[in-house]
């Protein structure tokens, strides 16, 4: 019945932000930045937070305008119900805010027609998520889930103010330094500013700020006079159109060497983690390696790494492995260095994913017409690889995984299903950027990442144990 805190907070109160969509469709970038700055000030005016605009992908809060599917498993829906979403504080995309480019964004006050959506109002809400607030069921709260335009001289409602102050402390108030004694109207008239208008006398004093977080380093004295936030230039008085100077670009951002914060949530690697360089022609060490792909083929487990693979039959790891993949499956590209994912279809054909292509084999022979591009499967143009693939024993459906997303593939239609991609968080406990996945003969699903793996509980849709087990011990008998 009030605000809700998600749990993650930024380790500092001095945050940076940056608009990364340089030309949002039909919108003036300068005016967009002004509205975003106004929205951030709603939060900084009511807490110890400070926000500095920079021009860098390394800012804490990155702002984008996207449409439909945009690579994060939470696609937009065109002009309509979903306006925007944001990620809670954290590494990688943590803190970022995405706005649906197909909406009609208003960059001024609400217009009477009711058409269009105030960017200021939605941004103020989304930045609440970027700072660690969940939705509030208090009607009129800024963190209320449904869109409600904001009045021009908007004041942050109490529910949101108490929430943000619980996370980042209340702003030092001018009169906080003056010894408090009963305010005598006649004697003290004008002695100090009237109490904050939204804090009616009956208002219980805001909770004492949480024990101050480790003192944030004093803001580095700006090397140049700090500029007041950019404001749109006044409309020209004379009628002849004057070429308007483009707004000054925000200052370039020199990444701050901030000591790594002590308690950040587990890092969420960036979606397209570059694969480590691969030493060529060196056989992988059976007892000390991660895997590129794993699949059950003809009831045996095939584990792939670089240009080699191992076979695990009923008697365990077969002798004489790892062997070269190209000795078993012919017509792979000459310059191939590794496979990204492998799975055996219900019709017993074997599918290899390498980069942006997939290869379908009938036993050891590449079928006619292959390789084909991933887009033939209905996967997006922007996808540069599939990390893992499997037929899930729970429902005999085929799943593809990549980065932070996954798709369900309809083998009959030959395309991924419409209501996908979805976010990998659905497979609770596995995290992003898996290396491999497969369903073993015990009917259980196994996810692999790095040198560890998790056994997955299909019924509960989460890993049996948060702590991964060591792959080489369990699978290679090391």
């Amino acid at each position, binding site marked *: 019945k009030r605000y809700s805190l998600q749990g993650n907070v930024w380790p500092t109160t001095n945050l940076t932000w940056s608009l990364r969509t340089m030309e949002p469709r039909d919108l003036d970038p300068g005016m967009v930045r002004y509205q975003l700055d106004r929205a951030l000030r709603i939060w900084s005016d009511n807490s110890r937070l400070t926000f500095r605009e920079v021009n860098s992908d390394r800012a804490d809060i990155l702002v984008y305008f996207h449409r439909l599917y945009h690579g994060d498993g939470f696609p937009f829906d065109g002009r309509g119900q*979903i306006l925007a*979403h944001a990620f809670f504080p954290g590494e990688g995309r943590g803190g970022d805010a995405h706005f649906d480019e197909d909406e009609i964004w208003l960059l001024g006050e609400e217009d009477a027609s009711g058409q269009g*959506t105030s960017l200021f109002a939605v941004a103020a809400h989304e930045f609440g*998520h970027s700072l660690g607030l969940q939705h509030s*069921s208090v009607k009129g709260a800024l963190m209320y*889930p449904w*869109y409600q335009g904001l009045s021009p001289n908007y004041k942050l409602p109490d529910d949101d103010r108490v929430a943000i102050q619980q996370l980042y402390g209340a702003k030092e108030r001018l009169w906080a330094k003056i010894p408090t004694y009963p305010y005598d109207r006649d004697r003290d008239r004008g002695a100090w500013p009237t109490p904050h208008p939204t804090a009616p006398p009956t208002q219980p004093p805001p909770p004492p700020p949480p024990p101050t977080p480790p003192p944030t380093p004093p803001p580095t004295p700006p090397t140049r006079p700090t500029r007041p936030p950019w404001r749109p230039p006044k409309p020209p008085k004379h009628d002849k159109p004057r070429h308007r100077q483009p707004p000054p670009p925000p200052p370039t951002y020199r990444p701050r060497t901030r000591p790594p914060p002590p308690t950040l949530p587990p890092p969420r690697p960036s979606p397209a983690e570059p694969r480590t360089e691969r030493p060529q022609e060196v056989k992988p060490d059976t007892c000390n390696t991660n895997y590129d792909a794993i699949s059950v083929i003809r009831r045996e487990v095939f584990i792939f790494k670089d240009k080699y693979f191992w076979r695990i039959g009923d008697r365990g790891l077969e002798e004489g492995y790892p062997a070269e993949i190209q000795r078993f499956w012919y017509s792979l590209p000459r310059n191939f260095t590794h496979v990204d994912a492998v799975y055996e279809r219900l019709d017993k054909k074997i599918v290899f994913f390498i980069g942006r292509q997939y290869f379908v084999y009938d036993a050891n022979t590449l079928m006619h017409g292959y390789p084909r591009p991933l887009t033939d499967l209905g996967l997006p143009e922007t996808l540069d690889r599939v990390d893992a693939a499997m037929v899930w024993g729970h429902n005999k459906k085929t799943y593809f995984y990549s980065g932070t997303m996954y798709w369900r593939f309809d083998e009959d239609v030959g395309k991924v299903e419409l209501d996908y991609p979805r976010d990998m968080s*659905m497979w609770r406990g596995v995290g992003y950027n898996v290396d491999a996945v497969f369903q073993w003969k015990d009917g259980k699903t196994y996810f692999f990442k790095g040198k560890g793996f998790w056994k997955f509980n299909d019924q509960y*849709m989460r890993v049996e144990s948060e702590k991964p087990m060591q792959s080489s011990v369990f699978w290679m008998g090391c």
Partner: protein
Amino acid sequence: APRSHLYVDDRVQNYLMRYGYLPQSDKETGNLRTEEQLRDALRELQRYGHIPVTGELDEETRRLLQRPRCAVADVPYREQTLRWGRRKHRH
């Protein structure tokens, strides 16, 4: 099984799952839901949206489902796990 008196089409069920009123994981496992579960989910949505709490998919509720909103879930993950993590999954 007796036909449910409460008919909630896929789009509404997707809405309830997307915003955390029904277990997201059901999307994947296809676990069936009881009518009572659907009614509970509708009641919670109606409470959150400050409209009459009926447990029915009535006109007010359909209007609420159409209103523009933020895409972040209303029921936090943590709470979903607590609420449904203990639920015995029916085969």
